[in-house]
């Protein structure tokens, strides 16, 4: 029997605001433990939360980019539970009146495009970190670092529209790209600024009713989510095929063993006793404010992919690579416009530029080749001043020194030889020096032309226009044949 998986993802994104969602201390990642603190995020007696406006704007941006309806009126709620890294004994979140609802993301798998629904996006505060298993912690102790307490989060709750681990990967990749484009979250899953939990059930293909679902937690990469889902689908299918039934439970993914194991039931059997947060007034958002924020949105990844394909005539695959992040897409567009050739720019950016960055493990911002200089290089090739092959040498030089291409070309005498009399001279010399090969050619072995071209290129240190060399060589050989 074949089975179908039903998957819904819950994603938490830490918003990259300067300060915390309800107080003034730093929301930056890391720091000396318990140094990013103030009375409010420590939950000291008498403190009150004050909502960070930037966090609201970031959440609205996220909602708009994910096609949500933004609520004019939304309410914060307290989610009550006891844990040492939760200083107030409750988390300020949103419950029945979230900020954003009814959205979707579009994922593209080859030529197939699918919409994955987004139930809601709400704002909340992060909790601190409990540290158990570190060398500096005694075996019977747990330490608490509250630096993360009060860092703003949006929780993006997806509809159970995802059917395969691969779709989950595409959804998360798209989501992460969007929040990065928006500049609201750095999307770093290893540092936990983007976290994903998954709800998953399986059912026989064609069956309408949903199976019993489990929840997967503790995945710290997109690939990890995909693997965990693959594992869990296989586990659930095996249980069903053996005639068993699925337990509704939460499993923790272990990236080292590639297995998911159930959490102790006590850790998640909460009654959170949600009720409206009386220390904050309901959030009122006017249509004008939403419109202002909407106008401030950058071009989103999907739109930019489409535009690049149309405007520069590059294949969709290239467009997807080039729009991976805004900096790369900006760089590409600058090169394409200045060089006047989108396709050549695409080949160079995807080939030489990304190859170089990859090889040297660099970011685009560290690249010494400015978009202007790369465009100038492409022009030198287009105008026939240097060959494509020489251009690659020049690029390597530009990347290591940051110099302009024409400076390098001039200094190294790399200008392409396109003068036909000069080339004819070199050709005649090569023919005179290689009588055996000439004999072979005259005997009908055409392949030796390649060897002879190589000799001419070597004689000119690669500067001879290869097209011209080829032509001249053939002309000269023909002449000998007569």
């Amino acid at each position: 029997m074949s089975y179908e998986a039903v998957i819904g993802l819950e994603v938490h994104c830490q918003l990259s605001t300067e300060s915390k969602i309800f107080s003034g201390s730093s929301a930056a990642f890391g720091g000396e433990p318990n140094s990013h603190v103030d009375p409010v995020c420590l939950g000291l007696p008498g403190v009150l939360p004050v909502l960070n406006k930037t966090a609201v704007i970031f959440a609205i941006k996220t909602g708009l980019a994910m096609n949500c309806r933004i609520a004019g009126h939304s309410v914060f709620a307290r989610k009550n539970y006891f844990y040492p890294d939760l200083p107030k004994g409750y988390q300020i979140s949103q419950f029945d009146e979230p900020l954003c609802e009814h959205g979707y993301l579009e994922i593209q798998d080859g030529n197939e495009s699918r919409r994955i629904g987004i139930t809601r996006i709400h704002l909340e505060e992060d909790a601190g970190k409990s540290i158990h298993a570190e060398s500096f912690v005694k075996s019977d102790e747990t330490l608490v670092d509250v630096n993360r307490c009060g860092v703003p989060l949006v929780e993006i709750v997806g509809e159970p529209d995802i059917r395969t681990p691969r779709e989950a990967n595409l959804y998360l990749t798209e989501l992460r790209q969007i929040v990065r484009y928006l500049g609201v979250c750095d999307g770093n899953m290893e540092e936990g600024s983007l976290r994903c939990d998954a709800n998953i059930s399986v059912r026989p293909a064609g069956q309408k009713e949903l199976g019993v679902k489990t929840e997967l937690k503790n995945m710290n990469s997109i690939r990890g989510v995909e693997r965990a889902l693959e594992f869990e689908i296989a586990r659930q299918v095996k249980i069903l095929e053996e005639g068993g039934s699925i337990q509704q439970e939460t499993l923790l993914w272990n990236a080292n063993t590639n297995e998911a194991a159930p959490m102790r039931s006590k850790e998640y059997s909460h009654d959170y006793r949600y009720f409206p947060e009386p220390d904050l007034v309901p959030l009122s958002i006017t249509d004008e404010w939403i419109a202002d924020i909407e106008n401030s949105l950058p071009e989103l990844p999907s739109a930019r992919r489409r535009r690049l394909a149309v405007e520069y005539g590059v294949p969709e695959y290239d467009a997807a690579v080039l729009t991976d992040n805004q900096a790369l897409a900006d760089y590409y567009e600058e090169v394409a416009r200045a060089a006047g050739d989108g396709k050549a720019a695409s080949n160079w950016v995807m080939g030489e530029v990304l190859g170089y960055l990859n090889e040297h493990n660099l970011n685009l911002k560290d690249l010494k080749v400015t978009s202007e200089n790369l465009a100038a290089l492409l022009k030198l090739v287009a105008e026939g001043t240097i060959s494509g092959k020489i251009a690659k040498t020049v690029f390597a030089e530009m990347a290591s020194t940051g110099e302009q291409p024409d400076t390098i070309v001039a200094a190294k005498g790399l200008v392409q030889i396109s003068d036909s009399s000069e080339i004819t001279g070199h050709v005649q010399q090569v023919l005179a020096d290689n009588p055996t090969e000439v004999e072979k050619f005259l005997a009908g072995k055409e392949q030796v032309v390649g060897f002879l071209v190589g000799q001419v290129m070597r004689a000119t240190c690669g500067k001879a226009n290869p097209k011209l060399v080829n032509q001249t060589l053939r002309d000269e050989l023909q002449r000998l044949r007569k």
Partner: protein
Amino acid sequence: MAERARQKAGEVDARVAAGEAGSLAGTILAVKDLIVMKGGRVTCGSRILADFVSPYDATVVERLEAQDAVIIAKTNMDEFAMGSSNENSHFGAVRNPHDRQRVPGGSSGGSCAAVAAGMVTAALGSDTGGSIRQPAAFCGVVGLKPTYGRVSRYGLVAFASSFDQIGPIAQTVQDAGDLFRAMAGHDPKDSTSAQLAVPVLDEHSGEKIKGLRIGLPKEYFADGLAADIRTAIDQLVARLAADGAEIVDVSLPHTEYAIAAYYIITTAEASSNLARYDGARYGYRAEQSDSLEEMYVRSRSEGFGEEVKRRIMLGTYVLSAGYYDAYYRKAQQVRTLVRRDFEQAFTVCDCLLTPTTPTTAFKLGEKTADPLNMYLSDVYTVSVNLAGLPAMSVPCGVDSANLPLGVQIIGNAFDETTVLKLGRHIEQSRVER
């Protein structure tokens, strides 16, 4: 505390000498011990915070000191402001200066007793369901609960966040008004504080109350009201009518549900507000627990008193899955109805006049065994907190046992002016008599 007071007093002397004194120069204050002061303990009358020192000042403390008030003491209170007799303090009961066998009322019992005994010019209390007004009545002093949102709650340790308000307790209405004005006004640190200008009041202007429409809600004069209090208020009403006030009979029909709704919503909020006192980060922690859960249970069981634990349990229950709609949601609906009752009443009158309490101060230990009976001492005060309105208790004579009794003036939202004006008139007319 003493060091800070001495230093402040020195500063005030210098400013007086330089002719730059603030409006409260010369005022000696006590502060209820759930309002934080930097470097000082804030116990909330509880074992769980017995040794807790605050690293910051409450907004009201900053504002009062900015006007040159000198704060010399923190005052005892019912634990976390939960109580009507000041018998629920980890540090022992407060006694009523008028009769030491009797309670001062609560929860701001320490503040009211200190003012009544003349230890300070005035004091700060907090009022969640009557905690300023009821003890003010029992102690024969003036106690003002401002409109919810009028005075910043930043630095007020929360009992029930949507009810709590800080207010002044004083020997005269004028002092209460002066303190109120110094404290009131929007505070960016309190999102629920109103963005409204504080009116420059004119209760001292001697303006008469001719034409003021005073409503008498009939539900506040029903069974359970002590005869002496009823008589005193009847006489006061007659005098006010003679002074030109227009007396209007009004009805607040949902009054009978107020106490129940109050105890559901306040305990729900309290169960959450008091969750942070868990022994994990600060405050009292039980020693030698074998697990996190045991540490929580023992710290909280040993750190909180009986009344606080009773309310945490009640509040936890009413928010629990399956009970929320029947209790919390229903109580919020009642709250809306109570608020509408007042809105309706204020279409025909400018303020309301009621007894503050059904009885005068009772004896220590008289009601401790019967929490429900104790809760009824707030029967005339809790509705005001459900509706978020300003109200003040003003002394209105004594009963046959020579114990003080108070009359309560309830104003429309943000109309402390009328409350203070009428209070001033009542006070003056008693003095003149």
